[in-house]
């Protein structure tokens, strides 16, 4: 069975077996009990040659309504932001792409340096002291934050604002199952945290209060007020934040956050039907020894030259095992590299511009769309690049209709909250053009007419 991915030829196999002193490869498999052996070939589709594979997979890909062929107004935690062209070229360099966790730092300075840069940039954006090398995605980052708050405070409840992405909340629930942490939800009748309700729920058992801003509905939350509330109860404040917005929006660290998490997908990571994304995790320095995930630190080599290593590893599973701060091992280093290259490329000025363009276009879109008869903003709150519309017809039907005009108008909220069954969540990034927004508004008007 010759395939281009296997090196040994029959002749080489023979020579190797001779060296080993075995008659056949079968002889090497003697430890596997006969009754446990698979007695037939695997029933898989036949092998495809490269050209056939391309044809087959291109046909599959063509059955998806992607953001290249469609004008994408979908958000809810994943956004069609601009991806500068160098990113893909640079991450594909084999020395980055095909290396693993930098266990041998002397032969991994490329990876280690990019992670150190990444940690620096994330700390700067979030306004926190330290950031780790990444968690899987925003949701699992939030789950890790909940576990960490539990570990740090010894308390057993996590209070979540209703504005936290409900998909994230589900992941938190999964992770909190084992430790028996209880989740409590603060309603958001006006689209933002209800402070009265929050005050009732946050108390001596509260390990952390979690808010997201802009929240799932697009509304900006009063993070400083939430911080005060949490801290008054001796709880930590965990803020979920989309780092791509932080060129313009205030750093959560400046507003009192103890832990900031979020998804860095907007920082140059492709939409890719939901993953891999980039779990951002940053905290105050006093919490560093309870942080999950890898950390890279600067040090010096034997000759005094600057060098970088994985550090504070005694937090991690490969050393602390059952007592580790987290079970994470493989993370999303390559996505962190994308974000690092992204942030280097857009730079100080570019990230501000991304935010400025997004918010300006989002406000224009909100105005245009709410001019369509029957369409209104669901919440009277300030927003940034995303907002919730109330529609006079079922949103999922609107979505299906607009798809025919190559418009992906947003995310219907019904699956997330029955009370918002008539709502559509609309995201507008800097990539959307006036022409696309106008076409959307016109198409919506037609569909609703």
């Amino acid at each position, binding site marked *: 069975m010759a395939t281009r991915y296997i090196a040994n030829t029959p002749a080489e196999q023979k020579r190797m077996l001779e060296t080993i002193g075995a008659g056949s490869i079968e002889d090497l498999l003697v430890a596997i009990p006969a009754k446990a052996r698979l007695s037939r070939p695997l029933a898989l589709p036949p092998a495809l040659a490269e050209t056939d594979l391309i044809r087959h997979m291109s046909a599959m890909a063509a059955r998806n309504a992607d953001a290249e062929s469609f004008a994408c107004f979908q958000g809810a935690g994943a956004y069609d932001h601009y991806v500068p062209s160098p990113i893909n070229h640079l991450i594909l360099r084999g020395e980055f792409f095909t290396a693993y966790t930098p266990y041998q730092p002397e032969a991994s*300075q490329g990876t280690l340096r990019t992670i150190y840069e990444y940690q620096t940039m994330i700390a700067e954006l979030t306004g926190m002291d330290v950031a780790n090398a990444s968690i899987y995605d925003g949701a699992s980052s939030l789950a890790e934050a909940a576990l960490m708050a539990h570990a740090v405070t010894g308390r057993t409840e996590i209070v979540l604002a209703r504005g936290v992405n409900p998909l994230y909340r589900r992941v938190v629930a999964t992770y909190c199952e084992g430790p028996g942490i209880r989740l409590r939800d603060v309603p958001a009748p006006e689209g933002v945290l209800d402070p009265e309700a929050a005050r009732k729920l946050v108390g001596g058992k509260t390990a952390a209060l979690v808010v997201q801003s802009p929240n799932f509905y697009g509304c900006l939350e009063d993070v400083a007020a939430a911080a005060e509330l949490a801290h008054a109860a001796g709880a930590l404040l965990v803020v979920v934040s989309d780092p791509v917005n932080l060129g313009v929006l205030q750093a959560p660290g400046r507003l009192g956050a103890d832990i900031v998490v979020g998804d860095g997908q907007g920082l140059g990571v492709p939409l890719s039907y939901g993953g891999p994304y980039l779990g951002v995790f940053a905290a105050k320095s006093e919490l560093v020894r309870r942080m999950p995930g890898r950390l890279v630190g600067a040090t010096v080599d034997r000759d005094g*030259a600057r060098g970088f290593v994985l550090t504070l590893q005694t937090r991690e599973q490969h050393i602390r095992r059952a007592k580790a701060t987290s079970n994470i091992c493989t993370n999303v280093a390559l996505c962190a590299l994308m974000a690092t290259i992204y942030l280097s490329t857009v730079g100080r000025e570019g990230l501000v511009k991304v935010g400025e363009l997004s918010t300006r276009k989002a406000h224009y879109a909100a105005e245009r769309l709410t001019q369509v008869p029957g369409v209104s903003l669901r919440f009277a709150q300030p927003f940034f690049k995303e907002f919730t519309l109330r529609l006079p017809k079922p949103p999922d039907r609107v979505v299906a209709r607009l798809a025919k005009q190559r418009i992906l108008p947003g995310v219907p909220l019904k699956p997330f909250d029955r009370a918002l069954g008539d709502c559509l969540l609309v995201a507008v990034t800097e990539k959307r053009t006036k022409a696309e927004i106008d076409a959307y508004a016109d198409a919506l008007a037609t569909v609703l007419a």
Partner: protein
Amino acid sequence: MSAYDKLVFELSSPGRIGYSLPESDVPGDRTARDLVPAKYLRAESPALPEVSEFDVVRHYSRLSRLNYGVDTHFYPLGSCTMKYNPKINEDMARLAGFARLHPLAAPAAAQGALALMHELAGMLAEISGMDAVSLQPAAGAQGELAGVLMIRAYHLARGEQRTKVLIPDSAHGTNPASTALAGYDVVEVKSLPNGEVDIADLDKHLGTDVAAFMITVPNTLGMFEPRIVEITELCHAKGAQVYMDGANFNAILGITRPGDLGFDVCHFNLHKTFTTPHGGGGPGAGPVGVKAHLEPFLPAPVVVKHGEAYDLDWKRPKSIGKLQAFWGNFGMLVRAYAYIRTMGGDGLRSVSDNAVLNANYVMKRLEQDYDVAVPGPCMHECVLSARRQKKQGVTATDIAKRLLDLGFYAPSTYFPLIVEEALMIEPTETESKDTLDLFCDAMIQIARESASSPDVMHEAPVTTPVRRLDQTRAAREPDLKWTSRAPRG
């Protein structure tokens, strides 16, 4: 020429730009200050680097050159299956229909993506002999968490309050960590000197409080547990579930299947067995497969097929819940799908045959010069012990560093913990005999040097961009981000 030693911040020049963004094309000239109340806004722009696009390209190209990767170096890191990552997989993952598809696309607008996931799950079920597979876990460790939580939910659903999970002392660190996270007490089971599970010790611990036994097959010494079927039967007899850590699946494709061995749950590491790239530490993907009795507990949603149409099934009342915001590391799933479709059943079998052959060849060639942790034949990897070299003052670390100088990445060291001065070597099937011979020659040279000139080992590495690094200083005075005031070195 000395190695490149810049951080991107050190290239920054105020006002230099690397981005390209259009001017606003919507009417008006309102800025964020006009649209958003001030209290939500940042006062100053963040201190990101200010560099040109070319600065970015050259900087990261240069940084990459400080790394060893599989594309450039033999990378025998045991337990990690550092095989060749086919380039066609990258091309497929970049098709716009995959790479630019939003996760909340209506299922009708994502039929291709859902079909791919459904078919991949089916193929993994066939490969593992499991009844159902969830693609959601982001990596092996998350697969473990999902698996153990399903076991927990299963017991609870049956009204059983089991509190312990048994794990061999040879296990990977994520096994106890994930298990503890799932709320269990972890109990270590001893291994016999030959690395096999001490069945007597296992039996001793197997009480009615035991929810599961979790074991890696082949084990972390690269050996197939010959009594594995006995073990799974024993566990089942005590009402415990059995979990297989599938990190070492590269050894057994088409040869044996966890489902047939009696396992209830197993996870895959697509970034190991199924050629998705390691990316400097991730992302990976850690699908988890289960037997039918655990199927109701799978993470939600589940990809289902109704007639010719694919859908996401959210109505999973017994589900353990979600692990990621969306459906899994889809980009990695595309790559793994491309790989399995390229290999077919025979091809996958051939993968394991050759992975095993290569590991045994290395083991044989090195058995004179190093102690072998367990006598062979091994499976896809072999574990050596440098205990002999240790007596000469040369540790596994020293050997690893010297290998770097000789042009190879290092094996895994000090894992499994039960082997003194462990060197865990996994060559994979994609490496050629020529490469293995060069590596073995280097290892033999090192063994000789350890006897004759141990100082060469202690000095190593000398050809890498930096020499041995001060780990203690890094941990004592953590310097975890760059500041303009205090550049190091």
